[in-house]
C-alpha cells in the first residue's frame, strides 16, 4: 500500500539525513494533520513544544554534517501508556490525569536515539482494558473508515492515527490483541512481537506475563524498520530476550517455498460471513503463488478466552495496586485516614472496567479459589503452548482472521462486558503462548477493513516479517 502522505520510513530518514527534508517541517506537518483530523479524537494531547525542540536539534546536527539516525526526523505517536519524559502520561485514566512522566520508556529512548520524534500521545481504553477504545475515561476515538464505528482497542488512537496518515507510525501495546485488533478494524498493519523482544520498561503494566509493545504502520516494511530499532535486551526489563543477530529488515522469504496452516478453530461458527469471504480470498491468493496451504487444528483454542480472562484480571489486580493515591496520581482530598485515602482515590480514579478486572483478579487469586481458577488457567495455558508448538512442527506459519467481525458501532457492546471480551477471541491465544503475530489489511467486508492474521513460532519475528512482506504483496 503506497504512502500518499508519507514516504516509507527509511526514505524519510534518508532524506532528512541528506538535508533534503527538514525534521521541523515534518513535525509541523504531523501537528497540522492532528488538528485537521481532530474530529476522530485519536490523540489525547500533543507534545508539540518538546517535538519542535527535538526537531530543531536534529536539523542543527544535520547542517553540521552529522547523521541523525535510522529514523531521523520521523514523527510518531505513542499510546498514552508509554511514559514520555516531561509529558503528561495518563493511560487514558482519571487516576493519572496530570501525571507528568519523570522518566521514559526504553522503547522511546531507542526511537529518539535514532532521530524519531514523538509528537503526541494516542487515546486508548483506560489502562489498556478494552477492545474498542470506548473505555477511555476521556472520550472515544472514531474509526477513520466510518466515524460511527469503533477503531478497535485498546490501541485505538494509535491505529486511527496511522489510518488517518497523521504520522508514519504509532506505538501500541498488545496484551490480548490490543495492537492487532485495532489494526484489523482500522485497516493498518499491526505487529505483536515475541514476548520479551521489546522492553516494557516505562510502559504502564497491564498483565505482565503477556504484555508486549509493538508498532502500527501502513506497510510491513515500515513495521520492520521500527521494530529493528526497538528490539533487544534491556537491563531495565529482566524479561527481555536477545534480538535476532540479522535484525528485522531485509528479511524477505520466498512465499512459494513456505507452508501455511489455516487455523480450523478460527474459521468456523462465530466468524462473520463477509470476513470469512475475505480471508478465503486471501488464502486463494497465497495458494496461487505455489505456497502450500493446509488446515491445522489447535483443539484447545476455544478455551483461550476463558484462560485469558482469568490470568489477565489476576495480573491486572496486582499491577493496579500501585495506584493508591499516595505517591503519584489522583488523591482523594480530605481523606480522614490512610484506608479512606486508598478507598476514595481508587473509587474516583478508576473507571468501571478497571474495577471489574481488579475484582475478578482479586477473586481468582484469593485463598480457596486460587487453585480452581488461576492455577488451572495457567495449566490450560501450558496445553495451548504445546498445541502451538505441535502446529509449528507441521507448518511454517499459521493463518486466520484477526477478528470475528468488522468494526462494530460505537455503543453496541458497552452494556455487556462479556460481549466486548468476545472481540478478542482470535487474538488472545497468541499472547498466552508468547508467540509473534501480525495483522495485515485483507480487503473490506460491509465496507469496513478486514485483517488477516499470521502467526509464527516464538522468536521467529524476522521470518514472520519476511513472509508478511511477501503476503502483503499478493493480497
Amino acid at each position, binding site marked *: 500500500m503506497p504512502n500518499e502522505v508519507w514516504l516509507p520510513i527509511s526514505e524519510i530518514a534518508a532524506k532528512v539525513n541528506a538535508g533534503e527534508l527538514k525534521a521541523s517541517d515534518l513535525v509541523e506537518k504531523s501537528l497540522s494533520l492532528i488538528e485537521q483530523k481532530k474530529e476522530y479524537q485519536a490523540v489525547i494531547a500533543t507534545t508539540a513544544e518538546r517535538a519542535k525542540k527535538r526537531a530543531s536539534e536534529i536539523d542543527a546536527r544535520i547542517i553540521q554534517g552529522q547523521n541523525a539516525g535510522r529514523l531521523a526526523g520521523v514523527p510518531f505517536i505513542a499510546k498514552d501508556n508509554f511514559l514520555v519524559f516531561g509529558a503528561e502520561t495518563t493511560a487514558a485514566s482519571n487516576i493519572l490525569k496530570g501525571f507528568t512522566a519523570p522518566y521514559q520508556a526504553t522503547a522511546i529512548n531507542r526511537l529518539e536515539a535514532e532521530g524519531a520524534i514523538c509528537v503526541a500521545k494516542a487515546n486508548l481504553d483506560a489502562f489498556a482494558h478494552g477492545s474498542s477504545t470506548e473505555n477511555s475515561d476521556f472520550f472515544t476515538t472514531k474509526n477513520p473508515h466510518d466515524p460511527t464505528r469503533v477503531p478497535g482497542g485498546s490501541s485505538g488512537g494509535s491505529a486511527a492515527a496511522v489510518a488517518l496518515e497523521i504520522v508514519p507510525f504509532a506505538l501500541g501495546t498488545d496484551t490480548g490483541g490490543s495492537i492487532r485488533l485495532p489494526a484489523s478494524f482500522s485497516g493498518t498493519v499491526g505487529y505483536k512481537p515475541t514476548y520479551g523482544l521489546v522492553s516494557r520498561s516505562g510502559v504502564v503494566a497491564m498483565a505482565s506475563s503477556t504484555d508486549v509493545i509493538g508498532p502500527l504502520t501502513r506497510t510491513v516494511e515500515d513495521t520492520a524498520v521500527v521494530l529493528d530499532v526497538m528490539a533487544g535486551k534491556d537491563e531495565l526489563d529482566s524479561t527481555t530476550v536477545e534480538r535476532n543477530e540479522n535484525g528485522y529488515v531485509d528479511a524477505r522469504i520466498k512465499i512459494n517455498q513456505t507452508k501455511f496452516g489455516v487455523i480450523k478453530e478460527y474459521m468456523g461458527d462465530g466468524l462473520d460471513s463477509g470476513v470469512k469471504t475475505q480471508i478465503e480470498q486471501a488464502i486463494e491468493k497465497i495458494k496461487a503463488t505455489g505456497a502450500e496451504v493446509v488446515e491445522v487444528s489447535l483443539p484447545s483454542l476455544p478455551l483461550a478466552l*476463558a484462560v485469558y480472562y482469568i490470568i489477565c484480571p489476576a495480573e491486572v489486580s496486582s499491577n493496579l495496586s500501585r495506584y493508591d493515591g499516595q505517591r503519584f496520581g489522583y488523591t482523594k482530598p480530605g481523606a480522614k485516614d490512610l484506608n479512606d485515602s486508598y478507598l476514595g482515590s481508587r*473509587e474516583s480514579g478508576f473507571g468501571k472496567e478497571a474495577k471489574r478486572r481488579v*475484582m475478578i483478579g482479586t477473586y481468582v487469586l484469593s485463598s480457596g479459589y486460587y487453585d480452581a481458577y488461576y492455577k488451572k488457567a495457567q495449566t*490450560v495455558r501450558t496445553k495451548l503452548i504445546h498445541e502451538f508448538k505441535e502446529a509449528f512442527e507441521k507448518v511454517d506459519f499459521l493463518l486466520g482472521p484477526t477478528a470475528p467481525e468488522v468494526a462494530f458501532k460505537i455503543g453496541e457492546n458497552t452494556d455487556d*462486558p462479556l460481549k466486548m471480551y468476545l472481540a478478542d477471541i482470535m487474538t488472545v491465544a497468541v499472547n498466552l503462548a508468547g508467540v509473534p503475530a501480525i495483522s495485515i489489511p485483507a480487503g473490506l467486508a460491509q465496507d469496513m477493513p478486514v485483517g488477516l492474521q499470521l502467526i509464527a513460532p516464538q522468536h521467529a519475528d524476522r521470518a514472520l516479517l519476511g513472509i508478511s512482506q511477501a503476503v502483503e504483496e499478493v493480497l
Partner: protein
Amino acid sequence: MATITREDVLKLAQLSRLGLNDEEVEEFSKELTEILKYVEQLGSVDIEGLEPTSQVTGLTNVTRKDEVKNYGYEPLDLLKNVPAVENNQIKVKRMIG
C-alpha cells in the same frame, strides 16, 4: 456454579481497596457473576500431567551488577508527582496509633 453476591462484592472491594457505592455493588454483582460463569468452563478441562506456565521466556535468575548507575534523571524529580512532600520525603496519613 459460583454466584458473586453483594457480600462477595463488598469483600472483594475491601480486599482491593475500592470504595464502591451501592449502585456499583449491585451492578458488579451481576456482571462479575456473568464473567465468572464464562471462565468456569475451564473446570472440566483435563490437565493431567501438565504444569502451570507462569512465564513464557524460560529465562531464570536474570541479574545485574549491584552498582549505582546514572540514567540522566534527577532523583528529586521523582517527587514532583507526589501529593504531599516534607523534607524530600513522601508524607502519608498516620498508620499506627
